[in-house]
């Protein structure tokens, strides 16, 4: 036994690559369940940081969040009543593990703070649902119920800023559906199957299916007197809204998301729709619109956007960006979609310190980067951490992704007209809309962003059940060839892990890296493993 090497590995952790002795991350897991035989030893300092400041810290603060935001009794009732919370959110620390595997130093710290913010916001939302839920309170419509509004998860939370502090907006599907897929991919399958069991064919977008299935299985808390729906990014979701209207059975306002949104006349129409929504909220809740509150919240949101631009500057122009692909993607989409909230500012402050440290001390948090990757189109929700695997296995460093770039704007607050115009723009650049099904011009914004972020490779997502994107597969292939861009495809069915398994996604990337790029893996233990039963 080489004592010197053992001591070095104890203090610094084993080196990444096979040539240097290798940490062999694939060997840490049990077959199929992918549970750890033991968690990763990242070196003394990083292991202690992970233990105290990520694992223990988050367990403690999750309990604290639950107690402060609605209480343990409401939480326990909610867990007992709703599958999506009980089955999904208890193993949340393993969501951290999957996203942060192999990360060291500043990358581990900065990415973990992003996860912490998402956990806190998730708890806040489901605790509000449970605290207001008539089903958990003997049918009583309490004060919280009367001051909560439900809305589709792709309706930007910012449209409710004028009632900040008086009406709390809680998306219908963000927590029961969207976040569950990332944390525990098993839960959502119940809802997809439920909606198909009432006759819906299996080929529409599984996101719409799952969102409807939650209602079919009667698994939606009754937490608000009114609801705002929309057609999400595509018109398949119109039927989701219809089912929601049927099963939720509440006064409903439908806020359309125009398909062709570059037309100034469409923007005018959209501005008017937002104003109509405000009128609807005033009528339903009897609380007047507040311009001052709207401006205050928008300014705060703009502050978040300005920091994001600083982050992008570092990501695009240096190797010192300390946030990994999955943390970047999920935090950003969560923040921009849900809208301004205190936790984002707290997190950004912490991340800014880490970012500044990385820049000033020239710390490269991803030293094994072989390719700087931009991920385009919509990601597989059940395998959002594929980019962590791709870095560990192949040195593919996902610098930025499409979901982070959709809301690349601040909102003017100098006049009512400007504000409304920008809000309409923001609303129309909805998730999956602007760059996934928003027309050729926007889909091909890829080339500009690729240059801006100094990327040399594209991870092209292919949502197999998205009819909007399917037709463009060939066009992208042609462009990749013409522009001599290395690109690999990641087929998936958004939340449904049964259509294209995680193992299949890894196999396709492995094939590309060996047959096209002729490269050797950094960590061969990650090439092929069975995680078919994992969360």
């Amino acid at each position, binding site marked *: 036994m080489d004592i010197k090497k053992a001591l070095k590995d104890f203090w610094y952790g084993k080196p990444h690559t096979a040539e240097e002795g290798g940490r062999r991350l694939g060997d840490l897991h049990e077959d199929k369940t992918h549970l*750890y035989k033991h968690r990763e030893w990242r070196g003394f300092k990083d292991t202690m940081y992970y*233990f105290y400041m990520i694992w223990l810290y988050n367990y403690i603060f999750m309990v604290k969040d639950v107690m402060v935001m609605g209480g343990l009794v409401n939480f326990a009732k909610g867990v007992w009543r709703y599958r999506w919370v009980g*089955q999904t959110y*208890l*193993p949340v620390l393993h969501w951290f593990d999957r996203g942060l595997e192999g990360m060291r130093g500043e990358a581990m710290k900065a990415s973990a703070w992003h996860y912490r913010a998402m956990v806190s916001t998730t708890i806040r939302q489901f605790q509000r649902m449970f605290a207001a839920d008539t089903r958990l309170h003997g049918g009583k419509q309490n004060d919280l119920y009367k001051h909560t509004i439900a809305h589709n998860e792709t309706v930007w939370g910012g449209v409710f800023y004028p009632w900040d502090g008086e009406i709390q907006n809680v998306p219908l599907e963000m927590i029961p559906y969207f976040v569950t897929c990332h944390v525990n991919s098993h839960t959502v399958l119940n809802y997809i199957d439920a909606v198909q069991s009432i006759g819906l064919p299996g080929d529409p977008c599984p996101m719409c299916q799952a969102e409807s299935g939650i209602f079919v299985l009667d698994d939606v808390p009754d937490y608000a007197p009114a609801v705002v729906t929309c057609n999400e990014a595509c018109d398949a979701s119109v039927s989701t809204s219809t089912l929601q209207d049927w099963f939720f059975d509440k*006064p409903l306002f439908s806020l359309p998301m125009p398909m062709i949104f570059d037309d100034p006349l469409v923007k005018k129409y959209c501005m008017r729709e937002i104003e109509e929504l405000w*009128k609807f909220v005033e009528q339903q809740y009897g609380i007047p619109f507040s311009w001052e509150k709207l401006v205050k919240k928008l300014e705060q949101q703009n502050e978040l956007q300005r920091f994001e631009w600083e982050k992008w500057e570092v990501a695009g122009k240096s190797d010192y960006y300390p946030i990994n692909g999955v943390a970047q993607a999920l935090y950003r989409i969560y923040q921009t979609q849900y809208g301004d909230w205190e936790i984002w500012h707290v997190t950004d402050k912490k991340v800014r310190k880490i970012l500044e440290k990385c820049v000033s001390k020239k710390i490269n948090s991803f030293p094994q980067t072989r390719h700087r990757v931009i991920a385009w189109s919509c990601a597989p929700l059940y395998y959002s951490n594929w980019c962590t695997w791709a870095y560990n296995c192949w040195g593919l460093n996902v610098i930025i992704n499409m979901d982070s770039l959709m809301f690349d704007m601040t909102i003017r607050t100098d006049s009512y007209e400007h504000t409304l115009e920008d809000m309409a723009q923001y609303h129309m650049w909805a998730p999956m809309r602007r760059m996934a099904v928003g027309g050729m011009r926007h889909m091909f914004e890829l080339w500009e962003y690729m240059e801006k972020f100094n990327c040399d490779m594209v991870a092209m997502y292919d949502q197999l059940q998205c009819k909007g994107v399917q037709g463009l597969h060939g066009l992208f292939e042609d462009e990749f060839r013409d522009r001599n861009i290395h690109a690999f495809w990641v087929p998936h069915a958004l939340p449904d892990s049964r259509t294209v398994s995680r193992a299949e996604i890894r196999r396709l990337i492995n094939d590309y890296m060996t047959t096209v790029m002729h490269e050797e893996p950094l960590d061969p233990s990650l090439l092929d493993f069975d995680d078919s039963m994992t969360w």
Partner: protein
Amino acid sequence: MCKFGKFLLKFLGIALVLNIGLFCAFFFDLDGKLLFNVVEPFLKDHYDNMERKDTLKTPYDIHKFPKYDYDS
């Protein structure tokens, strides 16, 4: 040894044992094993056997709420 010293030693001893115990739970993924093998199957069984309302029997009364009028 003074009373405070004894208390301090006891406190440090408990803290040390607690830290070692928690670290073992962390390092050997005991939380994951418990959640995967015990908690989740138990809860799934509970959810699978819950009585649920047949939502399809909810009448779809689209005229239940007053018609919404747009400003012209």
